């Protein structure tokens, strides 16, 4: 293999030793920083001798971030790659047209600097990061996208559409806000159809019933393995650390779906073996924490690391980038084209707990269920700076948890590593008060 030191761009077109432009220097710097961040994370994770062997498959995907993201996605050269944001883009349609979906929601602090050219200071760090990646070639799969599907979910994503236009072919999806409105649901079905037409145009393939049904099946199979995985995570003591579980689910953004399903199946089998033979990843008394709020994406894992370094365990999460991304199946009733499209449209909106919708009941119920099913002892509510929807819902969730008698800690942070110590103090104090440990 071509052993480039991490972070170095592939050799540029030879023009002698001409000086690098400012842009090239910037790209080089960000790539280097990203490589450093990723390497630190893996050094950290490798210290754990009890890590399941099946994690190696998922590690490989993320290690490639150190090398400009080459080989992270497995699209063939003639396959159309469609970038997606948020949880609202119907991936079944992309698969049915033979496309390759890749979720572009980003967690790297290192590209924030580039994103800041487009956005105000107090902007959602996720949007800053993904704008950075879109504007400059740091991870090559961003530039590989033949089209980008962007739902107008929160205000940041809404305005990001125009900002992305110089870099990508953007298709905006207008997600309804008020689910009780029948016309809003009809409109969303129309938006899904409009998306379908656009995807067909860009891939040059008509989506027929069989392809759509097969696409639904592929994703359902992956979701079945996730259900199995999540059930294993309910075991106490935990067979796998939360940070590893996040990595597995995060890998779904990039990997080929059937390969990913197979790798997860292997991991599930290893976990079942571990449970049988009594190997666990965390002590039985480890405080069981639920993380909810603004999503965390690789490599922004400072909070999971803090929780688990302090002896707790991230037992479950309610993030749209991991556990919530792969829950709720498309439910096919009759198998006709209209039925499948309606099933797809409804699955992406109706049970969705995203706070950009007007009602909070889906989120409240989901968190209540998670607390019961995973025997959660404490909830950490994570809000990214500038993220209003999650910030607003915090009080409602706090009240719900008070009624259930579960303590909650709110933390507000961004992607920068500067506040790790402050977070650690708060999380440590929080874990100390759990379960009357005092």
């Amino acid at each position, binding site marked *: 293999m071509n052993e480039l030191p991490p972070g170095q761009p592939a050799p540029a077109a030879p023009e002698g030793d001409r000086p690098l432009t400012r842009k090239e220097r910037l790209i080089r710097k960000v790539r280097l920083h990203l490589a450093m961040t990723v390497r630190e994370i893996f050094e950290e994770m490798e210290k754990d001798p009890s890590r399941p062997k099946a994690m190696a498959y998922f590690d490989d995907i993320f290690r490639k971030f150190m090398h400009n993201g080459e080989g992270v996605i497995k699209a063939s050269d003639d396959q159309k790659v469609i970038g997606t944001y948020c949880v609202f883009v119907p991936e079944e349609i992309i698969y049915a047209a033979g496309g390759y979906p890749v979720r572009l929601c980003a967690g790297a602090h290192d590209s924030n600097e580039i994103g800041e050219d487009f956005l105000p200071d107090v902007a959602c760090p996720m949007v800053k990061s993904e704008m950075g990646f879109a504007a400059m070639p740091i991870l090559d799969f961003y530039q590989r996208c033949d089209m980008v599907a962007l739902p107008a979910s929160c205000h940041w994503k809404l305005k990001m559409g125009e900002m992305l236009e110089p870099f990508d072919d953007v298709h905006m999806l207008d997600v309804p806000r008020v689910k009780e409105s029948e016309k809003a649901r009809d409109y969303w079905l129309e938006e899904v159809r409009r998306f379908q037409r656009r995807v067909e145009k860009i891939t040059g393939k008509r989506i027929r019933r069989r392809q759509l049904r097969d696409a639904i099946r592929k994703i359902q199979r992956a979701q079945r393995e996730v259900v199995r995985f999540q059930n294993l995570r309910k075991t106490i003591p935990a067979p796998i650390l939360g940070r590893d579980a996040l990595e597995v689910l995060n890998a779904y953004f990039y990997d080929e779906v059937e390969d990913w399903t197979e790798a997860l199946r292997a991991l599930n089998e290893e976990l079942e073996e571990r449970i049988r033979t009594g190997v666990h990843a*965390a002590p039985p008394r480890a405080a069981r924490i639920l993380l909810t709020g603004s999503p965390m994406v690789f490599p922004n894992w400072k909070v999971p690391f803090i929780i688990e370094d302090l002896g707790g365990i991230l037992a479950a999460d309610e993030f749209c980038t991991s556990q919530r991304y792969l829950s709720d199946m498309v439910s096919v009733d009759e198998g006709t084209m209209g039925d499948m499209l309606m099933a797809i449209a409804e699955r992406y909106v109706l049970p969705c707990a995203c706070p950009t919708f007007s009602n909070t009941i889906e989120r409240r119920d989901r968190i209540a269920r998670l607390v019961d099913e995973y025997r959660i002892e404490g909830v950490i509510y994570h809000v990214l700076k500038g993220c209003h929807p999650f910030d607003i819902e915090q009080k409602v969730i706090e009240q719900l948890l008070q009624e259930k008698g579960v303590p909650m800690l709110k933390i507000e942070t961004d992607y920068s590593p500067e506040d790790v*110590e*402050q977070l*650690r*103090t708060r999380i*440590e104090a929080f*874990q100390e008060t759990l379960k009357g440990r*005092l």
Partner: protein
Amino acid sequence: MTIAFAGIDIGSATTKAAVISGEEILGHKVTTTGVHIEKTSTALLEELLDELGLRMDGIKGVTTTGYGRRLVSFATSTISEITANVKGAVWYGRKAGVRVRTIVNIGGQDSKVISLDENGVTSNFSMNDKCAAGTGRFLETLARILELNLADIGDVALEAEVPIRINSTCTVFAESEIISLLARGKKHSEIIAGAHYAIAKRLARMARRVGIVEEVFFDGGPALNRGLVKAIEDEMAVSLYVPPAVPQVTTAVGAALIAKSEYETGEKIVEPRKLAKRDMEALKTCATCQP
């Protein structure tokens, strides 16, 4: 030989040590933290034990807390300063017959408000550890500009009938504001009182977010400042209980109490998985750039 326990509170500015045995505080000591945390803590504890006529092998547990808690190799356990503070405050309160429900702590570089439930367990807290405004650092700056001893400014503040309002929320800009007030010939006592009220106001805002329930316990080094106590009582509209012994050491005493309970129950409260090497390096660097 008496069984004793030690608690060391390693703050960014000062390190405090306390030794307890049974229900009594045997002694306490304060020193400047400096750059070498392990050396400072070791020396401090040894000096204190010397003064008390105790030996290290009589100390059955040493719990460290505060910013540098993980950098002391002879510590038997660590605990967050919030929990240690709570433990110490509730203990002091019980001795004085005061039911502590809220704790206000101002340290050298941070300030916090902790709310307790009826059982004396932390139910909510708010920390300001990002900015020097509302911390002991602000008072130090103030004393420096006015060329006064830090220990005296509280009494000077009390001389003022009506404080002058200081508008800047940032310590650095407040410094400029104070200098311009001096230049305009305003009374020192009123300026100092104004600075105290500015701190109190910030603290009160933080406290309101957490919920103010009496009795309110006030500790940390600046609690010795009577002018500050009055200002906070006014802004929070409650009376404060300040422990009569050195209020600076309540957190260290709390840490010692934790060491005692861990020894008695045989179980540690915090079981860290492992120390992240990266963060240890970061901590060392931060301790190095202390002014």
